[in-house]
């Protein structure tokens, strides 16, 4: 009988790991992942989260006592009209991403939901294991029919020496809207790999806002395909990289047809010996005329031991498009600091105000459900 450890070792052999010398793994050191001991990782019971009670009409599911299922059980819930539990389709799990491969080695929890035409749901998923060395591998799938709407608040916590491997998949039919807020908070020895696969039909809207804080290594790979264009995608990412953290965002948006829109803003604050990596791929093939894509990456580098690697990546074949991207890496502005100081604000506080100001545009864009969660301790 093969043990988890064997399968793990197999999954992490040089032959199956991404080639680090090149491509999208060039800047990401996988050592923290390899350092986790698969023999000690196990599902851990979920805690009752320290959050205000859910607003009326909001469904909140937490990590159950067994650490591999939701509580309350999705089958026992009286879902709003038009919402039905379904299986997570295997094709979500077949994606080649490392997160998917490792996720297959770990137990759940998993949740699949179908939203009938016009159905509406506000859903909170709070997955917070109680103990260290937790293995948590949520697999989520949302199938939204025409004009259905889902607001999802997804909270993922990683205690010390834990591994979180999350796969989120969604299919949005015409007129459907998925508004996703993610909060990923991990201990400074935890590792997170989060993959996203969203397919958007014309006329659909997908908004994704993620705030990542802590972790030793957190890698997010949201991928969106606007199958026939004419959809709207919004990405907002904030990485708070401190300590020895590596926070790594590899996004990919492909426009399969004309008149698609992308509005992407990535911000990362890098302090101490932390590292932020951003690689944002935007693909505009020939059939994607009149695409309008804007991507902006902003890094605030606060420490001489910190490191930033940013690689915007635009691949365009259509000629009638508007694509812009920008990237900046800098520290706090001397002029801004002086302005605040000249009003009597001391340097330490001025730095904090400016740092918070840097983060604020992302917090301002958090969807309402997740915005209502207390954020103390998240911001510097």
């Amino acid at each position, binding site marked *: 009988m093969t043990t988890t450890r064997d399968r793990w070792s197999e999954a992490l052999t040089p032959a199956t790991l991404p080639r680090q010398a090149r491509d999208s793994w060039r800047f990401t050191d996988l050592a923290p992942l390899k350092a986790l001991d698969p023999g000690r990782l196990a599902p851990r019971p979920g805690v009752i989260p320290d959050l205000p009670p859910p607003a009326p009409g909001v469904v909140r599911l937490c990590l159950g006592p067994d650490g591999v299922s939701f509580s309350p059980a999705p089958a026992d819930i009286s879902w709003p009209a038009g919402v039905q539990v379904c299986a997570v389709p295997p094709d979500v799990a077949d994606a080649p991403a490392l997160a998917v491969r490792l996720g297959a080695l770990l137990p759940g929890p998993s949740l699949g939901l179908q939203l009938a035409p016009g159905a509406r749901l506000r859903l909170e998923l709070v997955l917070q294991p109680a103990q260290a060395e937790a293995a948590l591998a949520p697999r989520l799938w949302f199938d939204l029919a025409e004009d259905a709407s889902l607001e999802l608040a997804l909270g993922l916590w990683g205690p010390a020496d834990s591994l979180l491997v999350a796969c989120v998949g969604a299919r949005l039919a015409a007129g459907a809207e998925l508004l996703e807020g993610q909060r990923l908070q991990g201990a400074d020895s935890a590792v997170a790999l989060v993959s996203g696969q969203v397919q958007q039909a014309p006329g659909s809207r997908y908004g994704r806002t993620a705030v990542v804080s802590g972790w030793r290594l957190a890698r997010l790979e949201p991928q969106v395909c606007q199958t026939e264009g004419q959809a709207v995608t919004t990405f907002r990412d904030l990485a708070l990289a401190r300590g020895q953290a590596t926070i790594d965002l590899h996004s990919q948006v492909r426009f399969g047809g004309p008149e698609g829109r992308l509005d992407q803003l990535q911000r990362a604050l890098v302090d101490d010996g932390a590292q932020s990596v951003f690689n944002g791929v935007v693909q505009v093939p020939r059939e994607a005329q009149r695409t309008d894509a804007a991507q902006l990456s902003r890094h605030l580098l606060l420490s*001489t031991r910190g*490191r930033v690697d940013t690689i915007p990546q635009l691949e365009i074949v259509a*000629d009638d498009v508007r694509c812009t991207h920008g990237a900046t890496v800098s520290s706090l502005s001397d002029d801004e600091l002086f302005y605040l100081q000249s009003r009597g604000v001391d340097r330490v506080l001025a730095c904090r105000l400016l740092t918070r100001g840097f983060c604020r545009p992302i917090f301002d864009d958090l969807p309402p459900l997740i915005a209502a969660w207390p954020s103390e301790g998240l911001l510097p």
Partner: protein
Amino acid sequence: MTALPLRDPSSAGTDAAVSAGVDALVAQPYRYGFVTDIETEKIAKGLSEDVVRLISAKKNEPAFLLDFRLRAFRLWQRMAEPDWAAVSYPPIDYQDIVYWAAPRQQARKASLDEVDPVLLETFDKLGIPLTEQKRLANVAVDAVFDSVSIATTYREKLAEHGVIFCSFGEAVAEHPDLIERWLGSVVPIADNYFAALNSAVFSDGSFVYIPKGVTCPMDLSTYFRINSGDTGQFERTLIVAEEGASVTYLEGCTAPMFDTNQLHAAVVELVALDDASIRYSTVQNWYAGDENGKGGIYNFVTKRGLCKGARSHISWTQVETGSAITWKYPSCVLVGEDSVGEFYSVALTNNRQQADTGTKMVHVGPRTRSTIVSKGISAGQSSNSYRGLVQMGPRAVGARNYSQCDSMLIGDQAAANTYPTIRSQQPEATVEHEASTCRLSEDQLFYLQSRGIAFEEAVSMMVSGFCRDVFSQLPLEFAAEADKLLALKLEGSVG
């Protein structure tokens, strides 16, 4: 130049009509595609240690240089051809290339009078007259034909100022100490596959040395001409500007039309010491292949400048229009404090051309500054990629970079890719990158046409407007030439 059919403005706005107007404009012949009929001495095809020794022996090189070549060759054998660039081509058979070709003539030309008149005529035809009466007034030219330099003008006048400008081979013979000191100091032997290949087999090229405090009294220029069909071209250029020296250097290149591909793997090294300044401009017009992608030069070139001294300044300006494939990243390593690196580039691809080009700005020293302005124009079914790296090292306190890379797409089958990489380890450094994509729109063309401007003139106005930031960096006569070159290359592509 053939007369260009004017487009009927009333048809503007319909893609089909535009394409038709365009197709009619295609097939402007490459002007420099002729072959000079001259007896050429060639060695047999293929590459081995013996070939490397043979090349070195033919050039009577000192031991250190043979050693340099052999080390490079041994490293090259163990290296793999890079495959990360966004270009594709069938595998190159490195044994099917001739690594040495030279027009047969007297062992050593004592003066221009002894140069084969056929060669002088060739350069005349290319617009680079070399003879005393006709040569360019303000530019000293080193003319390189296949593997060897055939003439360098104004050598004596430059020597009065202490400036050394000669072929690489002559420099090895006359200034071996300088060559030994600086060769490979910027681009190490095994820097990359093509640089290693060049280090092993390089034939000739130009050497420039500007002594301390001297402002070079005229612009210097090397003109590269490939003539043989199966010969690889491997030149080596080395420019050293001592403290407070400054020089402007221009590079031009053309090749005949062959329907096979030729490999051009050059290495250019620039060194600027304290307060020195080097401006290096290239107008590259190799043969790009025909509209079906047959033939053309593979331009796999390593260019790098080292700002070694404080307040030194290296500026690269390139107008890339030729070549079937361009793989080229003129870079600056900014070591000296307050040193400045610049990269201004226009890369135009048409038909089936592929370009993967950009720059690296490696900020090592404090308060170093760099500027990148890249304009990519993709037409036809070509692919044009900007690939760049801006790196702020731990000591680069107060360093700044500003990058702007814009793409213009003409037609819906051309590709424009942008791969800028920024790495920073220094909080007191600022990096700003902006990029945009635009197209040559029918509305704009129509607007210009409706004011009485002819179609092709409107195109050329808009393209030169798009490239203005780069052209303004070129020496005056080059800027006009570049403008014309772009218009010529684009004729017939707009739609």
